[in-house]
């Protein structure tokens, strides 16, 4: 078909805007738009003609939560920062200063590589997150690498330099959501590779709606007794995919 033909372009655009162009035809029309100025012009004309019809629909207030959800979708880091501003005296992961420091320090690399991955999966590229040492970790804590398989179901961690831990202390890895409390991903080795079993990982770990950052805290040998981080956070890295 010759989509440059004015009458054809006009008829298609009319049905598209009216909503009666459906299914494959609708998809085709959308796919053709970028390459066909005549279609775009016809579309703009029909939008201008018919959209005023919608002016008579009585507005309906959307639910109160809708805007917050849009914000969370667009700017996953925003609620945490906003909550931190809203009240002081919250846990460390809500503190603005912590996130300032963490985002200043954190280098996040999304690199496709199989080197660090125990079991590379060719169909989805793995993601490597570099967690930088925080001030709390002292000069000894350089950085720690966490690589997550593309499907988010297997995670491998390794400190780039061995961490000097006091006796009877362990490192615990946390997934920090955009809002809400961090979630333990388990204990990790202070001087070597740790493979975290896939059944320990939450679904869609790499979805920015679920995970804003990864962090490592120093805890008692069996891990945090409270289910939330209790010791200092010595590594943190934001997830920016």
């Amino acid at each position, binding site marked *: 078909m010759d989509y440059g033909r004015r009458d054809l372009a006009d008829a298609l655009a009319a049905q598209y805007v009216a909503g009666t162009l459906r299914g494959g035809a609708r998809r085709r029309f959308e796919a053709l738009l970028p390459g066909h100025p005549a279609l775009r012009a016809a579309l703009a004309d029909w939008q201008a003609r018919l959209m005023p019809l919608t002016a*008579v629909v009585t507005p309906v207030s959307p639910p109160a939560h809708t805007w917050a959800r849009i914000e969370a979708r667009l700017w996953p880091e925003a609620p945490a920062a906003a909550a931190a501003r809203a009240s002081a005296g919250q846990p460390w992961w809500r503190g603005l200063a912590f996130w300032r420091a963490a985002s200043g320090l954190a280098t996040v690399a999304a690199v496709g590589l199989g080197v660090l991955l125990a079991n590379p999966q060719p169909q989805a590229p793995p993601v490597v997150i570099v967690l930088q040492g925080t001030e709390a970790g002292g000069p000894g804590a350089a950085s720690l690498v966490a690589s997550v398989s593309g499907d988010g179901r297997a995670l491998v961690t390794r400190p780039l330099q061995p961490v000097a831990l006091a006796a009877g202390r362990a490192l615990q890895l946390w997934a920090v959501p955009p809002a809400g409390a961090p979630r333990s991903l388990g204990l990790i080795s202070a001087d070597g590779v740790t493979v975290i079993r896939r059944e320990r990982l939450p679904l869609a770990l790499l979805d920015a709606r679920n995970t804003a950052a990864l962090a490592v805290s120093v805890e008692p040998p069996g891990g945090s007794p409270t289910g939330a981080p209790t010791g200092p956070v010595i590594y943190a890295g934001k997830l920016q995919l």
Partner: protein
Amino acid sequence: MKTPTEQWTERSRALAAALSRSALGDRAAFKRVYELSSGHLFAVILRIQRDRDLADDLLQEVYVSAWKAAGSFDAQRAQPLTWLTHIARNKAIDSLRRAQAQPRLESVHSELDDDDRPDADQRLVDEAPGPAALLERASDARQLGHCMEGLSAQQRQSVALAFFDGLSHAEVAAQLCQPLGTVKSWVRRALMTLKACLERAAQTDRAVGA
């Protein structure tokens, strides 16, 4: 039919300004866009997608898309609310297509597809006016109203069902108990009649203005 920028309403200007600032990454401006337009867009979506939760989700998608595409909004070419409404209608119409592609569990219990309609209607937020009533109200708009009057009753009804409620040709045909081909030609002729009428009106306006 395109309204020159200087004739825009206060809301259109405020929306256009907020959209332009949003394109530069101004989040507060984008919140203003939401405040000025979400009630209208939610209503437009709800007419087409009557499941309130789905409609809410679609509304979120609309604003996510609008934020990302704010840079492509061109005040010289479209009114801001037209631009946003277009995004909203597209998402709503596409959601109907998705819903149809998914298995319909409720049809296990209802033998006729038509039985689903009253259910869907009952889930509607309130007693919203029917598409024909809306078209009558739309007819208050000067030129459009005049041109709507030029349509036959069947043409008007078909366009209203398709445009406001997102019904496909086949669904309009079922609703009006008419053959598909007849409904298709009603809609086609109605749109072409509207176009010709609106273009004549615009020419008259220009002639009067000159």
